[in-house]
């Protein structure tokens, strides 16, 4: 008679271990399997979080490990929440966050809508559109600095060609008014394909029978778009906004490579500012309080957003 794989594993288990396992309940066994993941999660996520909260109430400096660590209460939090420079970095982050999300959702959805139509070269275009997303942010930041060069940059040349302006008359990353838009353009260029892919998944999940029924009811294209396409793609779109929102709130590498936070500190986002406080000024306690503020903000926003997403999915 053929033995099942379960029987073979049971036979191969040493008697000492088998004896010990036999007395365990299913629940205990389940816990034994899950325990390594929980321990890892506690060690990698929860412990650093608790340690950061603890450090945020001290004047600890990681470059002075032998100095006495004093408990300073809420002083770090009060200093951060009355600092005008940090307030400006929050505004820079808000500008970056809002515009990247708006542009990526609009362009990403439009591209997905077009790619979803059957046409010749559909796959080739999808591959070409998705390419920027596959590049490293450091590489993207580096080559966009060349594209933005006033003398030799292709971007300046293209703007000059379209508007008639002198290409060397403006510098995207050197001008205080243009630099915030320069980082928005690059992030949009790089991450719109990601939103497009999520929207495309949403569009392809809509059964054609719904559109056929709408056609039978003589619903116009416009009506079909607003009453079928948008409501059914909305959960996917919201998911894309959640992912991009969290990712852009902690945007670091691309902007550092592109502008380094300048000119001045006009494109210094919170994560760049936080890194400066933690690893250039070595104010670990202060930076920990800063990180806790950012964490609570993202956590709070993500909580209400996930709630809204579940509501949309239930509709």
């Amino acid at each position, binding site marked *: 008679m053929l033995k099942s794989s379960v029987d073979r594993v049971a036979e191969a288990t040493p008697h000492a271990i088998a004896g010990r396992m036999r007395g365990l309940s299913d629940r205990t066994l389940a816990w034994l399997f899950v325990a390594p993941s929980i321990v890892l999660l506690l060690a990698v996520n929860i412990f650093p979080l608790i340690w950061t909260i603890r450090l945020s109430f001290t004047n600890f400096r990681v470059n002075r490990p032998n100095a006495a660590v004093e408990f300073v209460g809420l002083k770090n*939090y009060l200093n951060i929440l009355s600092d005008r420079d940090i307030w400006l970095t929050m*505004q820079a982050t808000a500008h970056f966050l809002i515009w990247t999300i708006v542009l990526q959702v609009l362009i990403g959805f439009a591209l997905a809508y077009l790619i979803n139509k059957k046409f010749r070269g559909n796959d080739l275009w999808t591959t070409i559109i998705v390419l920027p997303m596959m590049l490293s942010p450091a590489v993207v930041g580096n080559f966009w600095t060349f594209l933005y060069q006033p003398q030799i940059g292709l971007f300046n040349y293209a703007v000059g060609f379209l508007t008639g302006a002198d290409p060397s008359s403006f510098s995207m990353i050197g001008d205080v008014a243009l630099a915030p838009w320069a980082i928005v353009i690059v992030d949009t260029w790089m991450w719109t394909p990601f939103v497009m892919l999520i929207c495309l998944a949403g569009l392809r999940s809509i059964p054609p029978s719904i559109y056929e029924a709408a056609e039978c009811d003589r619903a116009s294209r416009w009506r079909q778009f607003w009453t079928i396409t948008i409501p059914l793609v909305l959960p996917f779109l919201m998911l894309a906004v959640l992912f991009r929102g969290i990712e852009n709130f902690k945007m670091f590498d691309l902007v550092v490579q592109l502008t380094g936070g300048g000119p001045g500190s006009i494109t210094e986002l919170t994560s760049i500012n936080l890194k400066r406080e933690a690893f250039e000024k070595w104010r670990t306690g202060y930076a920990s309080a800063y990180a806790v503020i950012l964490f609570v*903000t993202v956590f*709070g926003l993500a*909580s*209400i957003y996930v709630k809204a997403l579940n509501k949309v999915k239930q509709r």
Partner: protein
Amino acid sequence: MTRFFNGLLHFRRKAWEMLASVLIAAGVVMLMQPFALALYSWSFVVTLLGTVMFIIVSHFPE
């Protein structure tokens, strides 16, 4: 509106979650607005209050 206040009085999840969500959203707007430093200073307290409230009220009955 009356239903919302009744929900708050009877510890209904929906009403309290709505209140917590409004607090979180207000806190984030206060944190990133460019108009008043005082609003920025109080933003974290409002967001933290909303977030803690959201975690607690998620366990209230529907």
